[in-house]
Each structure stands twice: as structure tokens, then as C-alpha cells.
């Protein structure tokens, strides 16, 4: 027992901790914690100093605000030409829709807002009625309201629809159509029946493998070939079919994730209660499986919303295509015309996608009940 080390004297008191809290302490911890971190902070600040002033000047400082003239936009060193956006705003929202009939899309927008907001708030009452209205009644009413030809409304062919309106229509139809289709496909893929399973797997994998643009080409070129002679399919409808089939394949994979994550015991408990396949699926399996994959479903919708811009390639005037078409407007020709249009379109898309992604994050946190293993 010779080599026993015992401390003989007391440890000196440590110095009192420095400032905690306050901006200086925060900066010391988050910006200047080590020499290399300080260097990174300085370099990052330099980068921001380089990037932000030109962007600010373009968007606000030197920009021509709504009400300005095209001459101001053409001036040397002028920034974004917001006057041009304001002048063509109706075109970006409604496309070639007749101006006297703008109240019809406006009612549709209002209905959409009124129905979708309570649907997204989990605590709002009357979910079932609300969902029924949104998924079944709303599309039918909107179609007749927009297309007209009933109740004395003027007929507006789909060729005249455009702008943000068409972007929203395509994404909403894609969403509403792909939910049941995607769920059916996912259930089919999980099925024990070999033929049904093979068909679903083939469908899902084929659509997921090809880019949307080939699907749209296929829909716009081959769909007329597939139809009986003399039957024409509306151009917008072709795109809608393509987009819906495409996104249903992606949705099916998300739903499959939810189905696979559900413990086997739930299926077995359903069977033990004597429920048949459909009752078990509708009452026990799907409510839990779908709840778990709401974030994934919303992410699919974000991708779908962004992908709707591709319909401009097959000649449909969605938001992006109206902006693209307006950028060759001679009356507003100026060096910043095209950039301003793209910034505007980017902002519109960004708002919707960002809102959806925040919603999905919020839902994820809400649904995280701590049951994860």
C-alpha cells in the first residue's frame, strides 16, 4: 500500500464565471468561440456585405415601385421594375380569363381559403363535413363556376384559364386525385394477392422512374391516341391526368411507409375483433398510418406544387408560363423586366411551399407523442 495517492491540500477556488447572458456573451459563444470560428464569422460577414447591398438595392433601393413608368425602369441603374408586375398582375393571376368574369375565380379562391383553413387546424370542429365539402363538393362547384355554361354563366374554355389560378387548380386536383389513388396503390402493394401486388408495384415503379416531363409529353401526345376516334381530351385535362397519376405513385410510397410502420398487432387486433379487410383498413389501419405520415404527404404536395410549373412545357399558361410570356411584352421592355418577373414568380411559389413546409414541421412536432422507439 505504498502507492496510494491522497490529496493533502484543498483545491483552490475557481475564478467566478465571466458574464453569462447578454449579447456579448452570446457573440463570444456563437460567433467567436475559437480562432477559426472568429475567422469564419469575419469571412461570412464579408460575404454578406458583398451580397446583400446589391440585392437590397435591386429589390427596394433602386426599384421602380408600382405606379412608376416604363421610362423609369429603362433608366441606367434602375432596379426591379415592380410597376411592370403591378400592371400585369391580373394576367399573372387569371391568365386570359375574361376580365368581366374575374369574380368567378375570386369566389373559388375565397371558397378555397374558407374550406382549407379549418381543415388544416386540428382543433376546428366539423372535420367530416369540412373534408366532404373540400374533397367532393368544392371541386365540382369550382369547375362549373370557372367553366360556366350552366345557370346562364358565360362559357370560358380552359384555354383561357391561366396564371396562379391554373397553378392552384393543377396542384389541388393533383392533391385531391392522388390521395385516394395513392392509398389504394399502397394498400395494393401491401396486399398478399400476387397479381394485385405485381400490378401496383409495376405502376408505382414505372411512374417514379420517369421524369414528370416525359409523363406530360406522354399525356399530351399519347392520351389522344388511346381514346376512341373522334373523342378529344381537353389539354388541361391531359396535364391533370398526368400530374395526378405521377403524384399518386409518390404518395403511394409515402403511405406504404406509414402502413409498414404500424405494429402488426394493430392488424391482428382488427382481425381478432372480427372485422373484414375493408372495415379493418378503414377503421383501424388507415387512420393511424395516415396520421403518422402527414409530414411525408405534405412534402409530396410541396414537390407536386413545384412540379406544376412543368406544364408550361406542354403549352399551358400556369404562373411560370404567364410570367415567361409577359417578359417579352414590348410595352414594358427594360433590362430588368425578365429578372423582375422571375423574382415575382419565385416569391409566389416560395410563399406557398414555405408555408406548407412549416405546416408539415409543426404537424410533425404535434404528432410526435413520444412513442418512437
Amino acid at each position, binding site marked *: 500500500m505504498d502507492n496510494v495517492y491522497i490529496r493533502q491540500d484543498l483545491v483552490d477556488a475557481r475564478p467566478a464565471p465571466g458574464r453569462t447572458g447578454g449579447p456579448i456573451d452570446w457573440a463570444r459563444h456563437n460567433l467567436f468561440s475559437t480562432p477559426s470560428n*472568429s475567422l469564419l464569422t469575419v469571412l461570412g460577414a464579408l460575404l454578406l456585405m458583398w451580397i446583400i447591398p446589391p440585392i437590397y438595392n435591386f429589390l427596394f433601393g433602386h426599384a421602380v415601385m408600382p405606379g412608376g413608368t416604363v421610362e423609369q425602369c429603362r433608366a441606367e441603374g434602375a432596379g426591379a421594375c415592380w410597376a411592370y408586375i403591378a400592371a400585369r398582375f391580373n394576367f399573372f393571376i387569371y391568365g386570359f380569363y375574361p376580365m368581366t368574369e374575374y369574380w368567378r375565380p375570386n369566389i373559388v379562391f375565397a371558397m378555397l381559403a374558407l374550406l382549407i383553413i379549418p381543415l388544416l387546424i386540428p382543433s376546428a370542429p366539423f372535420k367530416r363535413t369540412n373534408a366532404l365539402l373540400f374533397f367532393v363538393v368544392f371541386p365540382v362547384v369550382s369547375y362549373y363556376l370557372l367553366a360556366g355554361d350552366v345557370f346562364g354563366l358565360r362559357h370560358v374554355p380552359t384555354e383561357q384559364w391561366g396564371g396562379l389560378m391554373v397553378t392552384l387548380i393543377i396542384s389541388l386536383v393533383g392533391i385531391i386525385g392522388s390521395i385516394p389513388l395513392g392509398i389504394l396503390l399502397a394498400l395494393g402493394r401491401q396486399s*398478399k394477392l400476387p397479381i394485385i401486388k405485381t400490378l401496383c408495384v409495376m405502376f408505382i415503379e414505372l411512374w417514379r422512374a*420517369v421524369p414528370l416531363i416525359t409523363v406530360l409529353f406522354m399525356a399530351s*401526345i399519347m392520351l*389522344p391516341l388511346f381514346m376512341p376516334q373522334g373523342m378529344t381530351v381537353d389539354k388541361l385535362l391531359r396535364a391533370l391526368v398526368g400530374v395526378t397519376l405521377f403524384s399518386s405513385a409518390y404518395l403511394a410510397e409515402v403511405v406504404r411507409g406509414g402502413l409498414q410502420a404500424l405494429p402488426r398487432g394493430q392488424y391482428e387486433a382488427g382481425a381478432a375483433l372480427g372485422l373484414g379487410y375493408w372495415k379493418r383498413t378503414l377503421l383501424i389501419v388507415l387512420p393511424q398510418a395516415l396520421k403518422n405520415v402527414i409530414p411525408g404527404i405534405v412534402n409530396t404536395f*410541396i414537390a407536386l406544387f413545384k412540379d406544376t410549373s412543368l406544364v408550361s*412545357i406542354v403549352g399551358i399558361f400556369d404562373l411560370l408560363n404567364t410570367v*415567361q410570356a409577359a417578359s417579352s411584352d414590348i410595352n414594358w421592355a427594360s433590362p430588368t423586366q425578365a429578372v423582375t418577373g422571375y423574382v415575382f414568380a419565385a416569391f409566389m411559389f416560395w410563399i406557398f411551399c414555405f408555408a406548407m413546409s412549416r405546416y408539415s414541421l409543426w404537424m410533425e412536432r404535434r404528432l410526435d407523442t413520444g412513442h418512437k422507439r
Partner: protein
Amino acid sequence: MAVLDHTTGSAPRPSLLNDPVFRGILYQVLVAAAVIAFFGWIILNTAQNLAAQNKTTGFDFLFRTAGFDISFTLFPWSRSSFYWQAFLAGLLNTLLVAVIGIFFATILGFTLGIARLSSNWLIARVATVYIETIRNIPLLLQLFFWYFAVLKAMPAVRQSFELPLDIFINQRGLMVPRPMPDHEFIWVVVAIVVSIILAIGIGIWATRERTATGRYPRYVINASKVADAAVSLLIGLLAFTLLGHIVTAIGANPALVWIGAVVVAALSLTRFAPIGRAILGFVFTWVILSTLLSAMFSTWSTLAIGIGSVIAGAVVAWIVQERAADRPPSEARFPTALLILIVIGIPAFIYWSTGAELAFEVPVLERFNFKGGFQLPPEFVALVFGLSIYTAAFIAENVRGGIRAVSKGQTEAAQSLGLKEGDRLRLVIVPQAMRVIVPPLTSQYLNLTKNSSLGAAIGYPELVNVFTGTTLNQTGKAIEVIAMTMAVYLTFSLLTSAFMNWYNSRVALVER
């Protein structure tokens, strides 16, 4: 009331319609019949439609001359080329843009993903803003922006922007020098391949020896010391030559460059090696920062930029010196310098001894256009830009998720084993994070390849543009053309998922 009666022996037979096996078969027969009927209906309609339009089917059109121009091909293309060559040209263009896009997107994505996790608040915020902005804007819009608003708005040919290394950028795209290797250069290429294989072999062998015996082989250590000095000399030469561009006193006097490089090389052999590295860090930071700053802020005074860069250089020198002083002795270090010397030295020796020559044909502005060099069309540049920037945002999120998925306990365990930060990342964190990162990463690569089809919208001649666009319009063979295009993408997708399955089975956690 139901009375249980098990005495009869056989279970009561349910009605045939309630028998799950029979029902399963019935459902499948019904579905199969419906699908077959649907396809039959489609095929019948198509046949009638095609007959009405006097069109034939079949793949014989592939061997007819195409008769249209393709603006950018990887092999010689003329109007008399066949349609199958058009297919090949489109396919190669798709692959070219995909490979280059994947390269840049990976670098940018990993950088951003790591930056978003940085403990530095500013850097993390910048990365977050980038990712959240880019991810939520459609790719097509971004491509239009790069193509119509940036590259098409470049100056005309006569006012081209001149970038370093004889690269020019104007409305017609990016002009880069074209390498012109002569016949002997093939030996240099062979030497490069051989020396890379050699270097990898030596690296693996040395690591194995060290794992077996506890130390690297003696001659590897000795060779590594010499190589250290040689590589230091080369890097020193580079550093002081660059310094000569901003400090005229050094630029005017080549002897000073050599003296500086030799001092650094000599220091690397002594125990003052950290000081040599600190000098190199100082010089590089000074040169790069002052060049960048004077390019970025043309209004700032040269003196302020110079002082700022010197201070930053001093900080870097300090950091480098601290890090280098912490390094283990050279006996215990992986012989990186030796491997670098092998990869650079052997090809350089072959290049010098065979008299091979690698000339660069520089683009030269003539009366109306650039002559010589390699002309990358603006469509290509815009597509590479758009795809890399867009996909990088997604890759960054995958990287972040992968690193976050490695539990904090792993870092702490590595710390308690006494591993340094570099080893901790290289040996513990990254291998585990890669298991999570690679599968979504490959699907991002696949997405990038599929998204390259959007090049059709800005006129880049990739598969969809050349084949599903022009070829389909000219031949009218809608079914064949679309089927071939889809088959190509289906093949990409199946190859990717085959790779993912292989990788997953290789890295899957083996649980007991």
C-alpha cells in the same frame, strides 16, 4: 342462441363467397380481367387511330437519316446521321450534364450540410437561408432565371468577360481552353493511372502493416520524411510565386521565391515543422483573401484590404501552428506526403523524360466570334448551374440528417478513447453517418438525372429534347419514341435501386 357443437368433427363449411382463398382468387381474376380489358381497349383505339392517320409502327425509323441539327454533341454529328445516333447523342448529353451536375452538387451540398450544423451562428444561418430559399422554388423557374436572365443577358461576344485561365464568358456561353495532348501524352496518362493505383496500394499496405505490428514500415517512414520536404518545397514554390503577384519585391526577384520555398522545406525536416506550415498558411491566406477582397469590393482602399488580409493570415498562421504542434510525430502519421509525391512525381518525370507535350488551344477573339478552345453553350452552363444549386440544397439536408442521426454518445465515446477531432470524425462519426446519408444521396443523384430532362425547356439537346421532342415530331412514332425514353429512365432507376440494395445490405447493422 348459438350452441357450440364440436362433436361432428369437421368445421362448418362457410359459403364459398366467404372463403378468403376463393375470394382472393376471385378479386385477382376480376382485377386482371379489368386491366386486360382496359389495355385491350387502349390498343384497339390506338390501332384504329394510327390506321386512320396512315401511320405504321416499328423501330425501322431508327435507321433513317435524321436530317436535323443538334447544337451540342459529344461525337461528330451531321444532318445525315441516323435517328439512333440522335438517341445516342441525347443520351450522352443527359449523362454528361448529370455527371458534372452531380460532381458540383455533391461538393456544394456537403459543404452546406456541414455549415448548417456549424456551431458558428452566422454560418449556420447563411446555410439555412440558402437551403430554405432554393428548396422552395421550382427548378424550372431557376433554370429560366439562369438561362434567360443571367446567361442570355451576358455581354455580346466583343465585350466578353475575361475570367482567369483564359476563360471567356459571353452571350454564346463559356469559352474554355481545349487541351491538345500529343502522341507521347498517352504515356503520361498511363503513368497517372499506374501511380494512383500504386499510391492506393502503398497506403493500404502501410495501414495493414501498422495494424499488424503497431508501426508503419521503416522505409515508408523514411521515404515519407523526404517526401514531406519535397512536397513542402513544391507548395512553398506555389505560395511564394502567388505572393509575387501582390508583393512586387518578391515578384521581381525569383531568387526570393526559391529561398522562401527552401526555408519552408528545410523547416519541415526539423522540429520546427509547425512554423513552416504556419508560414504557408499565412502566405496563402494573405494572397487569396487580398485577391478576393479587391475583386469583391472595388471601392475599398488597397491599404485596408492589405492590412485586413495580413491580420487574417496571422490568425490562420496561429491556428495552423497550434494544430501542427498537436500532431503526432511523423513515425505515427499516415504517409500522405509520400502518396502525393508518387501521384505527382511519377507522371511529371514521365512527362519530362518522354518529351510529351500538353498544349492548350486558347480561345481567341476574332472578328465575329471566338476561334479555338472549347465552347460550352449557355444552355449547358445554365443547366449545370441550376441542377447543382437546386440539388445541393436537398443533399445538404440529407447530410445534415445523416450527421444528426449519429447519437451524441458516439462522439463522447470517441472522446473518451482519446481520439482527436479529425480521427473522431474520420473513424467514428462519418462511417456511421454515411450509412444514413448514402441511400437518400443516391436517390438525389437519380433525381438530378431525371431533372436534367428540364433542359428541354431551355433548349439543351438532352434525351427528351432531341428524342421525345424533335425526333417524335419528325417521325410521328409517338409510342416507340416515348417507350424508348421511358425505358432509359427506368434503367437508370433500376440501376440506382440495385446499387442501393447492395449498399444497404453491405452496411446494414448486424444485430445480435
